């Protein structure tokens, strides 16, 4: 029998044996085991090294509050550091490693820190690594990180997927112990929609860990029977392996379901974990309580654990850390541990009880009024030194020591909305306060109802109250109902290296030092000593620290107060919070109607917001992107090019007052725009800064189609709805986005008309007179397909935009290409689009950058004085209209080979170059194949009056200064003849 410390009984499946590895050594365990229980059964007590002093440590608890038994699970890309062995469910083939030791757990070179512990007290880092400051990043921090690190990340991408989900219920019950199960049963039988969530894989809570019965059966059997009944109810959803990690506003709870943590590899397509957002009408917190330790010298050796955890290992998992144990307690609960383990054949060295009047036992020795004052054992407990009531010392030989200092209700979730716990004098512990999150009530041990019967009754009561159930309350099942009172006993007098926070290595001495050095408020104590700041959030340590601080300050514990509990209740993997939002799935992708065609053409794509747009279309012989872009520009300007501009926002504006509405949102006038015409429009924010620009096409008296820039489509729509609903509620205007409904292509270049004439049905007069610059119409193409045609130009060429229902976009693009062959048609991407608009001097996002006004953009006169529009009043402010205000101009290098850098600053031709002499900045720059040099758009002080001036363009980033000339922003066809041809 390899499992030397496996006892009889327990809720494990002995018929099945599973193999697992810890630090390379193979062991056996059973279904139902945790990693910790299986290791204990195999006589392994040493499971980790402590954070700071590298002291040998074993499990302190049997649950999620565990500070010590922190291990690394699995390997390869699935390597998972900082996992609690006490909650890690065993599976066949589990590989686990201890952490924070070098080279091995039994011999850890860093344990030398323990010898120098006097130097590593509270505030050590603050005091030591102050000087010299420059040493911090290069020397101190890397060393500290290496020494103090916990587990290691795999540094590989997590191969598993994580889901997010949403559930709604009338009643959420958190915790499936006696009170939670009873509440679920009560609510479930009443027909309400219930979710019962528990972090454990086996529901039942303490019932699974105790020997006392419920209704003439064992607690564990009663729990199993109750769970079975709940499972038959369609209105009750059981969520085992699910930790409710946070209580958020208005009944929203976050919960992590560990779907596949208990198996070797998740099944195909199945998530590792799911982050649930649970919308609960009402919530019952039945989270139970956590046993608290007593601090004494060297209380952290492997084998020393909480008494009820020792009992849980024996009763539920049939495991014990040793065959001879002792108990150190200040209350009756500790005696149960001795009785239960003795019943399983474990020898009891003695029960050390701090109370002089502690109850005696016929079966084991009780040392009344005694205290454990020190322990021995290098890698695990061997002896406990006991100071008896008469002052004499006695050494107990034992391989495990159960410690019980009473119980603390698990009130964490009651505090997630800044609620404060209330001191319960009978329990000498904090219980739930009065300011619970709305909709929450607390039941069972979490509410201070410590007996089994008390917990069961409170579950019934809480469910009935939460749901407003009327009628006679059902009777709670028969169960023990021992009154529980707890008298505080926090630490053994005179101890110093007695651990309070075992995970962060904070001792009683550290708390005293903190007080001595003036860090006396709980928040300061926490940060100075790091008490409670480890991944266990001080579940077993905070109270001890508070108690000592209170004593030193001469205050009561409630006067000292507590720090604030915050989500998550237990450590939560970042991957779980990210869910599916990783890599390509970080955000949804929007594809243009010509996407599949462009992909066939080998287009290079660029992300523009969520859109994927063709950036350029390389030909096989082209090796540099500039070759492709220059060709696309030149060919468009020489003949004809086609670009997918579907991504521009399109908003349908209809209604009798549509024109009045547009007059308000655009700074220029729209009321007089004729039907069948398009006009450029500039939208201002109310503070006079340009927000967006685009066009509005009037398709009918009461019907416009407004376009926005790609980036601002959503924001402009929101703004328009704001104006419609909040500022002008009595106008007859209706808005709807049609961005995706239409595939819209720019067809530009001198041959654009000729090409479109082959597509557009003959009843549309495409002549310059029949369809002039800035005309628009509903037309048909390709023998009857409805389409919209706009004669607008971003490139400065004779150009159109043609739109058809999106599903025909692919076919239309292919048709334009085939019909355009005779014109040497070229598809162009966003780079060529950008080059051509810079060549033409059209402002885009770089110029409408949230700091510029119509005046800056050279469109000051567009702001109509004849009407009020959003932003018109504040754009008149003197500060925005000074004579040296920035004006949009073009810049070109004096030497054609010089580079224009976007972001570079404009400086006078002579004199110093600094912030005070700054004359403006370049917003956009590109190589212009039309001019044969780089060109740029710039905002220059009083720029419109400085045409022809020589200036310097300097870029501290590239450390380049070149001579440039200020020119008109319209590099190509400044008279605009081409677009009107």
């Amino acid at each position, binding site marked *: 029998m390899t499992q030397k410390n496996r006892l009889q009984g327990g809720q494990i499946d002995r018929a099945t044996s599973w193999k697992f590895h810890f630090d390379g050594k193979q062991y056996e365990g059973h279904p139902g085991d945790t990693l910790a229980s299986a290791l204990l059964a195999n006589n392994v007590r040493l499971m980790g090294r402590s954070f700071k002093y590298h002291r040998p440590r074993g499990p302190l608890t049997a649950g999620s509050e565990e500070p010590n038994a922190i291990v690394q699970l699995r390997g390869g890309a699935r390597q998972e550091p900082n996992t609690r062995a006490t909650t890690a469910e065993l599976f066949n083939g589990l590989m686990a490693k201890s952490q924070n030791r070098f080279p091995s757990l039994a011999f850890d070179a860093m344990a030398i820190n323990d010898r120098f512990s006097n130097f590593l007290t509270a505030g050590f880092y603050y005091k030591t690594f102050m000087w010299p400051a420059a040493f911090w990043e290069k020397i101190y921090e890397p060393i500290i990180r290496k020494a103090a690190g916990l587990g290691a990340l795999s540094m590989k991408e997590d191969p598993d997927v994580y889901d997010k989900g949403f559930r709604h219920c009338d009643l959420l019950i958190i915790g499936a112990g006696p009170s939670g199960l009873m509440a679920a049963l009560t609510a479930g039988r009443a027909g309400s929609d219930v979710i019962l969530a528990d972090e454990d894989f086996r529901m039942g809570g303490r019932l699974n860990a105790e020997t006392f019965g419920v209704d003439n059966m064992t607690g564990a059997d009663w729990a199993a029977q109750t769970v079975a009944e709940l499972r038959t109810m369609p209105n009750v959803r059981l969520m085992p392996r699910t930790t409710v990690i946070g209580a958020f506003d208005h009944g929203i709870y976050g919960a992590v379901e560990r779907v596949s943590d208990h198996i070797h590899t998740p099944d195909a397509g199945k*998530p590792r974990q799911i982050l649930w957002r649970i919308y609960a009408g009402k919530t019952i917190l039945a989270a139970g309580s956590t046993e608290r330790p007593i601090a004494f010298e060297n209380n952290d050796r492997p084998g020393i654990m909480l008494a009820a955890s020792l009992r849980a290992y024996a009763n539920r998992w049939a495991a014990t850390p040793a065959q001879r144990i002792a108990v150190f307690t200040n209350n009756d609960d500790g005696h149960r541990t001795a009785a239960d383990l003795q019943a399983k054949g474990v020898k009891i060295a003695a029960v050390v009880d701090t109370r002089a009047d502690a109850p005696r036992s016929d079966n084991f020795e009780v040392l009344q009024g005694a205290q454990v004052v020190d322990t021995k054992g290098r890698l695990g407990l061997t002896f406990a030194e006991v100071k008896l009531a008469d002052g004499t010392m006695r050494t107990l030989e034992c391989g495990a020591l159960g410690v019980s200092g009473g119980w603390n209700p698990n009130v964490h979730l009651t505090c997630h909305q800044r609620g404060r716990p209330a001191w319960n004098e009978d329990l000498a512990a904090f219980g739930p306060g009065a300011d619970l999150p709305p909709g929450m009530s607390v039941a069972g041990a979490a509410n201070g109802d410590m007996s089994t019967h008390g917990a069961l009754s409170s579950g019934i009561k809480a469910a009935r109250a939460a749901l407003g159930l009327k009628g006679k309350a059902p009777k709670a099942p028969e169960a023990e109902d021992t009154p529980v009172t707890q008298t505080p006993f926090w630490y053994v007098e005179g101890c110093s290296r007695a651990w309070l926070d075992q995970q962060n290595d904070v001792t009683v001495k550290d708390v005293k030092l903190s007080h001595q050095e003036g860090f006396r408020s709980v928040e300061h104590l926490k940060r100075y000593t790091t008490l409670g700041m480890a991944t266990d959030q001080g579940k077993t340590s905070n109270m001890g620290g508070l108690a000592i601080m209170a004593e030193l300050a001469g205050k009561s514990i409630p006067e000292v107060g507590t720090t604030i509990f915050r989500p998550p209740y237990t450590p939560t993997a970042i991957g779980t919070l990210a869910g599916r939002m990783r890599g390509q799935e970080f955000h949804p992708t929007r594809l243009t109607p010509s996407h599949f065609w462009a992909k066939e053409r080998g287009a290079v794509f660029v992300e523009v917001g969520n859109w994927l747009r063709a950036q350029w279309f390389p030909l096989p012989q082209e090796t540099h992107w500039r070759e492709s872009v220059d060709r696309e520009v030149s060919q468009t300007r020489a003949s004809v090019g086609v670009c997918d501009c579907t991504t521009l926002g399109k908003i349908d504006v209809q209604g009798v007052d549509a024109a009045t509405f547009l007059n308000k949102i655009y700074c220029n006038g729209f009321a007089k725009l004729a039907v069948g*015409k398009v006009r450029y429009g500039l939208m201002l924010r109310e503070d006079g800064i340009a927000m967006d620009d685009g066009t509005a096409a009037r398709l009918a008296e009461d019907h416009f189609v407004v376009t926005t820039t790609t980036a601002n489509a959503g924001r402009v729509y929101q703004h328009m709805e704001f104006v419609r609903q909040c500022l002008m509620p009595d106008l007859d205007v209706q808005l709807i986005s049609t961005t995706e409904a239409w595939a819209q292509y720019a067809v530009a270049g001198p041959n654009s008309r000729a090409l479109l004439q082959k597509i557009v049905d003959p009843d549309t007069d495409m002549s310059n007179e029949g369809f002039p610059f800035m005309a628009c*119409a509903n037309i048909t193409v390709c023998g009857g397909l409805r389409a919209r045609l706009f004669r607008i130009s971003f490139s400065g060429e004779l150009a159109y935009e043609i739109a058809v229902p999106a599903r025909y976009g692919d076919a239309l693009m292919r048709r334009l290409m085939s019909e355009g062959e005779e014109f040497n048609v070229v598809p162009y991407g966003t780079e060529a689009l950008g080059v051509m608009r810079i060549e033409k001097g059209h402002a885009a996002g770089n110029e409408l950058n949230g700091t510029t006004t119509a005046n800056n953009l050279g469109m000051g006169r567009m702001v109509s004085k004849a009407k009020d529009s959003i932003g018109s009043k504040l754009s008149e402010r003197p500060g925005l209209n000074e004579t040296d205000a920035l004006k949009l101009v073009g810049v070109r290098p004096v030497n054609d080979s010089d580079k224009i850098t976007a972001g570079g600053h404009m400086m006078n031709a002579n004199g110093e170059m600094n912030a005070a002499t700054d004359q403006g900045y370049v917003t956009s720059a590109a190589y212009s194949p039309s001019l044969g040099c780089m060109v740029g758009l710039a905002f220059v002080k009083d720029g419109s009056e400085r045409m022809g001036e020589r200036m310097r363009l300097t870029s501290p980033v590239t450390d380049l200064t070149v001579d440039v000339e200020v020119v008109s922003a319209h590099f190509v066809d400044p008279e605009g003849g081409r677009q009107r041809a």
Partner: protein
Amino acid sequence: MSKLFRLISWTQKGDANVHNLTPITALGADTPRIDTVAGVTCTEVSDLALASVAVRLGHEHAAAKSLKSLLNAEAPDVGKALLAQPYSAVWVGPDQWMVGADTASHELLADEVKTALGATASVTEQTDAWCCFDLMGDGIGGVMELLCNVNFRAMQSGDAARTSIHHLGCFVVCGDPHGFVRILGPRASAGSLHHAIVAAMHSAL
């Protein structure tokens, strides 16, 4: 110039499908995509014509009357959908609906609806603004709870909600709480939406 401009009404065309352009589905294929996981199918719907209706100010009664006669039923109330032939409808906002029909027989649905409602409402073609997936089979509830925050368990046939799926604004219309839900999402993101739905099917089923 304006006298040269002629507004062509598409409804004047006798047959809307005489043109020679071939449509593709939102997922970019010739035929709709079907995925099956453990008995649940996700079917791309490519033959759904849509038109939005927004009642004009002061015409609430007249529009409701005309809409009723078009739909052969009261326009659906807040959070509801009318599941019927030849016209279906979903409430999308105050005095706003989305009307649906088969594209084969209603390619010019927006014109039909506009003709029915006249000056009482603004009508906009929305057919290609949306992609559509039908989720059918036992267990769709488990798929839905991974996709969106709609309380699908509480939905009845004819309930509808606008919600967010994978950051996409979508309509969820319940056909049968035990086995049929229709999801409408933005067409340009059809691939992302489809991926999210199928991933949720593999996860939940």
